[in-house]
């Protein structure tokens, strides 16, 4: 599974990398537009287009009915009820295509999430590295080796009861670094990114299952049976501004993909 995840991730690396020097929302918007277009086509072929058109027509009709019989409370209420039921029917028609597009869209969202939800550390910022090990090893034996550009700013804190050992790290120079963590003769790495570019970042690395690798595509999972249970640290939230306002990437994704979809739905001939 990992090679597929890796390929998908590489594709997003390449695509978003094209807009590396630009505002973060440029790349995000391109992905949103492409997603909008592709999902619209998928929607077309996985939904019952005739039934959706019919349900929409009925909803419109009942809203007209509310207008036409505005002086007749009984008919008004009946029209409201019919509009509600037609609306429910319309929503139910969205379920089958929703199920079809759910997984690919989740995969896309995860790819965006690892790039836009948080940002890399900036030189001078600190973070807390947590290493969880299995019960069979002593957390006191865990060692950490950091490359140049990353400094250990405090002595490790070991919590044997939790099988945990923590280090405080400080970013010193821009770059992508691999921390080397060793215990019982086994060494694993954990990537840490320092800088201000849009790139995939992973806060944690653990023994993920086959499906879970889709949810953590930035770094390969720790092999099953490893003495390491999980390695993690925290990146700061990304605060992206557009026209002076902080905008969450998910909102941008939603608005851009929906607006683009709306703009081309006539061209594609899709009933949504």
């Amino acid at each position: 599974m990992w090679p597929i995840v890796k390929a998908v991730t590489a594709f997003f690396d390449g695509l978003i990398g094209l807009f590396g020097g630009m505002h973060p929302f440029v790349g995000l918007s391109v992905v949103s537009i492409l997603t909008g277009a592709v999902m619209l086509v998928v929607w077309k072929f996985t939904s019952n287009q005739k039934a959706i058109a019919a349900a929409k027509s009925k909803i419109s009709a009942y809203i007209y009915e509310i207008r036409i019989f505005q002086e007749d409370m009984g008919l008004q209420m009946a029209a409201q009820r019919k509009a509600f039921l037609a609306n429910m029917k319309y929503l139910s028609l969205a379920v089958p295509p929703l199920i079809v597009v759910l997984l690919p869209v989740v995969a896309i969202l995860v790819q965006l999430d690892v790039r836009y939800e948080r940002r890399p550390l900036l030189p001078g910022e600190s973070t807390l590295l947590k290493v969880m090990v299995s019960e069979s090893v002593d957390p006191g034996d865990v060692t950490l080796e950091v490359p140049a550009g990353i400094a250990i700013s405090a002595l490790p804190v070991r919590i044997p009861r939790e099988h945990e050992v923590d280090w405080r790290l400080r970013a010193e120079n821009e770059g992508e670094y691999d921390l080397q963590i060793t215990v019982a003769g086994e060494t694993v790495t954990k990537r840490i990114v320092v800088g201000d570019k849009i790139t995939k970042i992973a806060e944690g690395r653990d023994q993920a299952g086959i499906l879970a690798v889709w949810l953590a595509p930035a770094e390969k999972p720790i092999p099953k049976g490893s003495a390491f249970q999980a390695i993690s640290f925290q990146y700061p939230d990304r605060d992206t501004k557009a026209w002076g306002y902080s905008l969450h990437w998910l909102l941008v994704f939603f608005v851009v993909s929906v607006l683009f979809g709306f703009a081309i739905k006539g061209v594609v001939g899709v009933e949504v």
Partner: protein
Amino acid sequence: MARLKGTGGWGGQIAPGSVPAPRGLFFLVALVALFAATPAPVDAYIGPGAGFAFLSSFAVFFVTFVLAMASILLWPIRFLWKLIFKKRAPKTDTERVVIVGLDGLDPNYCRKYMDEGKMPNFEELAESGDFQQLETVMPAMSPVAWSSFATGVDPSRHNQFDFLNRDPKTYLPDLASVFIGNVSRTLNLGKYKIPLGKPVIRMLRKSVPFWRILGDYGIFSHVLRVPITFPPEKHKGVLLSAMCVPDLKGSQGTFTYYTDDESELGEATGGVRYRIKKVNDIVEAYVPGPENSMSKDNEELREPFKIKIDEAKGVAHFEFNGEKFTLKPKEYSPWIRTAFKPGLGIKVWGLVRFYVMEMTPHFKLYVSPVQIDPEKPAMPISHPAYYSTYLSKLQGSYATLGFCEDTWGLNERVIDEQAFLEQAWLTHEEREKMFFNALSQCRKGLLVCVFDGTDRIQHMFHRYKLDDHPANQGQDTEVHKGAIDNLYERMDEMLGRIMRITEKDKKTVLMVMSDHGFTQFARGFNLNSWLVENGYMYMKDGGTDCSDWFRGVDWSKTKAYSFGLTGIYLNIKGREGQGIVEPGEEAQALRREIKEKLSGLRDSERNNDVAITEVFITNELYDGPYVGNGPDLLPGFNHNYRQSWAAAVGKADGRVIHDNPKAWSGDHCTDWRLVPGILFSSKRLVRENPCIIDMSASVLDLFGIAAPRHMQGRSFFRPDQTEERREPTPQEKIANG
């Protein structure tokens, strides 16, 4: 140094042995969990399709909620407004009146089929209520009679004498009921001329329909497809226009016929025939649309289509306006929406049906007239304007053309009887849906709906009822012999369904009526030829014939002329463009002279039958303010006779009386006394000899409203009282002997 948050992305501590998932992802997972409860929030994040679904649904909830709140809050204000400012009718025992108009249903057929037990529901209604003949007006035709129905006045007061009127200055025809003008000001922009304003569409029927009077008293009316309601007039209620609503070309229905059979090409009345070529089983052609009024050249707008013929499977695959569909021979397509594009991104929406008449050896295709799309009407066809859209959204596309059953298609034999019948019944089903929907909504007030398939089917299938009808020559006389019987039986079945609904409510009065009856049209009478023969009309070449719309007529000698289905006009000085007859005594003397000569005229070629029972001088029959707009003389044709097809379009052809070989073989444009309509009522009539003019006053009376003084009709639900009695019209005097 930036401060790192001490908690996980979703606000909690990182659990031992776990890795913090991305925050957005958690949100997504939460949404997926929510999915089980309601799909809506998840939709918002699953691409644009679902995003729209979510947004639209939210908008629907929001709009319906706002509208509900608004109507609840406004209700007391409305109530007070009505209480203070609106006229109120006294309480009566009638809260709802349902009028089912079955155009052309004939009392003699009804009686016959009831006697035979084929119309049990009509029988039941007659027994529990009433059944009488409903006297019609002269001329006995739908636009005239339904106008009298709506207004309660005779033709000289509502200004409708025929489908067509003439421009007296040019002798050329105009629609009698509506004026459709061009936009007066345009802006020239390159190849375009942009209209600055809307075209003038003006109703020419005068007087006031009774549903407007009901509205003054706060009574809501549903008026569906009553003839001569285009353009729609405002009133309290809803209205869908009917007869005289044009197609997108602006005509009263222009079919298109495509064939590769050379023998079938040529001119056609009511349509256009096109030659097509089948190349490698592919046919490419176009549906002709309206003229492009935005273009300086006014060129015809066209929408191309492509057909792939699969002879092995016996089907034709169509591609039209982005839609793909497949038809077998003798099968109608559903309504296909088409957009004609005059430019600047504007679209004019229409509806057509396709019908493959034949696949091999020749490919023959019929396309219905391009109807105004009721969902996006190019001109208003309903009140309120969005009512047509509402109906379209509710029940799907439907025919909007005034004459949507293509009688000319069958007359010209581009479709056969089966195709015509299917078309008529498809249209009828659309009307039924509208009617029953309105019936469910109309709990108080008026519902009137006219079904005109009854008229069209009788026009086209009457020949089957007369063995020696000239139209039977060389045509089928067996397959559709029962078309009219079936029509009456189906109307009875529909009435049964209506009665099951209305009989539950004791405050409902149900009336089933027709505007006229029917008779055979076996012989055509060319009034122009008769006028030529008798020295009232002259040709420039000294001959006896003139072509359409009087081309070749010498107006300097002509005293009288005829066109349309109903009458003779005098060529009066000062009124007509080249008039020669002095108005006043000379004109009246001429009227009397022609009346005398024509009344009782016999057909020597057909048993010496009387062809014209009596000719009526219009200004002696009627005295309303518009009497001068109608024909000067109204010939009352006998059974079997009617104005000939040629004379109807202003032709003289040297033959006065001749056979009618057209499929349009039944008619009612005769002496009105021969073709009364029907009136079935769940409430017993108090007065006998009801007339269609009385309908409006009777409905007003049911709601406790006195008929206004201008109305000539009187309620047949109450005996005449001295103060209400008015002088009978000459037509009534004649009708009553």
